[in-house]
């Protein structure tokens, strides 16, 4: 039996129903806009061809983008993590404190990752067991993480900003050289690469998570957990385990940034990562993730991170536009993107 009402979906139509479509246009518009604006103000080469200018926005895109990977995976599964930014400070402080207490670099990194993974496990477990919205649960940890980080360092070493430079230098009397591990982990310095390490981690993580999301069983389960959790459970998808793992991925991504920031700057700052969770969520929304879950992509979130970074850094290259207007623009972009995505999603549902 042939259903005469079954329309063939053309390749153009299936392109239109991709979640990242909106952000492709968004990125094109932002690039063209800032290329024009910098041309007018005579700063085109400073932003687009000068290595330092390029570094400025690429590195910001990578920083926000790493968080946006976690934010988009969680959002597709129908959850949020507002504590990401605070967890960067918590991880940085934990790492710096461990170094201060004489723990070698590599174990300090490992212990910090285990701590943050455990934190993600706790948050995820609270969310799936109590049924409280993750917005509320992670808001609690947004306060708690940063507060705990500063409390610990002030109590233990009576400082809120921890300098770790001495612990990342080769010891005067010989012995194991911690710079080696520093170079392997934050490898940009070792290889004389043009960007900070997070740019390369970002690239690798994007490839891994995009494949995971679209081409593996776990990725399938992420979409199903956010789309209709009850229906997913009915066919045997371990929804709770999927969500808890994603909270752990989210805290580990924050941990990666916390540790890298300490290594590149030589100090742990209690304000590290401030507001970054909101930037990451904005990038995920601009990139086409549906707030209610079940729809979105990592690639979209990556494009969203670039849109955010180009607009954020670009505004500094355009002296005749007030810096504060950047936030107005970002706000409007988030709203516009959410509207566009709602429209696109309805198209998918209607076919």
């Amino acid at each position, binding site marked *: 039996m042939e259903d005469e009402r079954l329309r063939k979906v053309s390749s153009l139509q299936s392109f239109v129903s991709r979640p990242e479509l909106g952000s492709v246009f968004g990125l094109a518009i932002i690039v063209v806009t800032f290329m024009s604006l910098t041309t007018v103000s005579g700063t085109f080469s400073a932003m687009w061809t000068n290595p330092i200018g390029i570094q400025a926005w690429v590195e910001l895109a990578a920083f926000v983008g790493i968080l946006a990977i976690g934010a988009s995976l969680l959002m597709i599964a129908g959850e949020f993590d507002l504590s990401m930014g605070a967890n960067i400070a918590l991880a940085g402080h934990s790492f710096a404190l461990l170094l201060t207490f004489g723990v070698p670099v590599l174990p300090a990194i490992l212990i910090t990752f285990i701590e943050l993974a455990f934190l993600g496990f706790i948050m995820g477990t609270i969310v799936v067991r109590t049924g409280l919205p993750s917005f509320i649960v992670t808001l609690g940890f947004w306060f708690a993480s940063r507060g705990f980080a500063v409390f610990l360092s002030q109590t233990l070493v009576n400082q809120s900003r921890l300098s770790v430079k001495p612990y990342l230098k080769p010891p005067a009397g010989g012995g194991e050289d911690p710079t080696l591990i520093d170079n392997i982990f934050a490898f940009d310095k070792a290889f004389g690469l043009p960007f900070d390490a997070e740019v390369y981690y970002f690239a690798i993580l994007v490839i891994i998570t995009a494949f995971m999301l679209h081409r593996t069983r776990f990725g*399938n389960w992420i*979409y199903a957990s956010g*789309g209709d959790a009850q229906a997913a459970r009915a066919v045997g998808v371990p929804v709770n385990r999927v969500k808890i793992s994603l909270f752990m991925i989210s805290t580990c991504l924050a941990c990666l940034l916390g540790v890298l920031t300490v290594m590149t700057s030589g100090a742990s700052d209690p304000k590290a990562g401030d507001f970054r969770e909101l930037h990451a969520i904005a990038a995920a929304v601009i990139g086409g993730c549906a707030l209610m879950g079940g729809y979105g992509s990592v690639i979209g979130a990556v494009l969203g991170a670039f849109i955010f970074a180009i607009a954020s850094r670009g505004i500094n290259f355009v002296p005749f536009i007030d810096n504060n207007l950047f936030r107005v623009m970002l706000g409007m972009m988030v709203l516009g993107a959410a509207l566009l995505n709602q429209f696109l999603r309805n198209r998918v549902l209607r076919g």
Partner: protein
Amino acid sequence: MTATIQLNGVSKFFGNIIALKDISFEAHQGEVTALLGDNGAGKSTLIKCLSGVHAPDEGEIIIEGKPVKFSSPRQAAAAGIGTVYQDLALQPLMSVSRNFFLGREINKGLFLDLDKMSEITRREMAKLGIDVADPNQPIGTLSGGQRQTLAISRAIYFGAKVLILDEPTSALGQKQQLEVLRTVNEVRNRKDIAIIFITHNDLHARLIGDRFTFLNRGRILANGNREAIDTDNLRSLMAGGAELAELEAELKN
């Protein structure tokens, strides 16, 4: 011929409420057993007992001659009970083939074998008379009847010997209802699956049913095959028999 599934005196209580009392009926492969009853008759509780959500408090469930006890829906599914719920347990934004294999994906190495999954989905849907042009299209593009067929063919592909259909026509438009009945007929024609068709639509039951079981207030009101129950009888049993007579008397006064 032994029944594929047989219930002997099954009862289910929730506190002091008798949800089901002394339910006995059987379903045979290659036949549609229509389970009729009004809202609150106990149809949902009965499905839940059959599909392993609830354990019956009394009586036994026998599958292919062996008594079974399920403590989870997973066990029931493993024993060959395929339940297609009213909401179908589908993901509207995911593709047809991903829905078909959700929770039971086929892997090739680390990654999903999307080609094989699409191919099987298309083949299995075609067996029930639905031609899926592109198994990668989101399920939102399918009609209600086609989604129902997807859920049915998924249950069969993953080993259902007893297919329980929970009000498969109730949420659909007229044309799609017929589409679903056609699908049910295709499944019957396979001759290897016992279908339990739950409905409160006597018209559909009469069209497709081989055997009929009537539930009212948690008890069996009547059991019978096609010959034993004529249309008028069926309609009056649906409306609760005696209660209908009472109402008739009331309206005449």
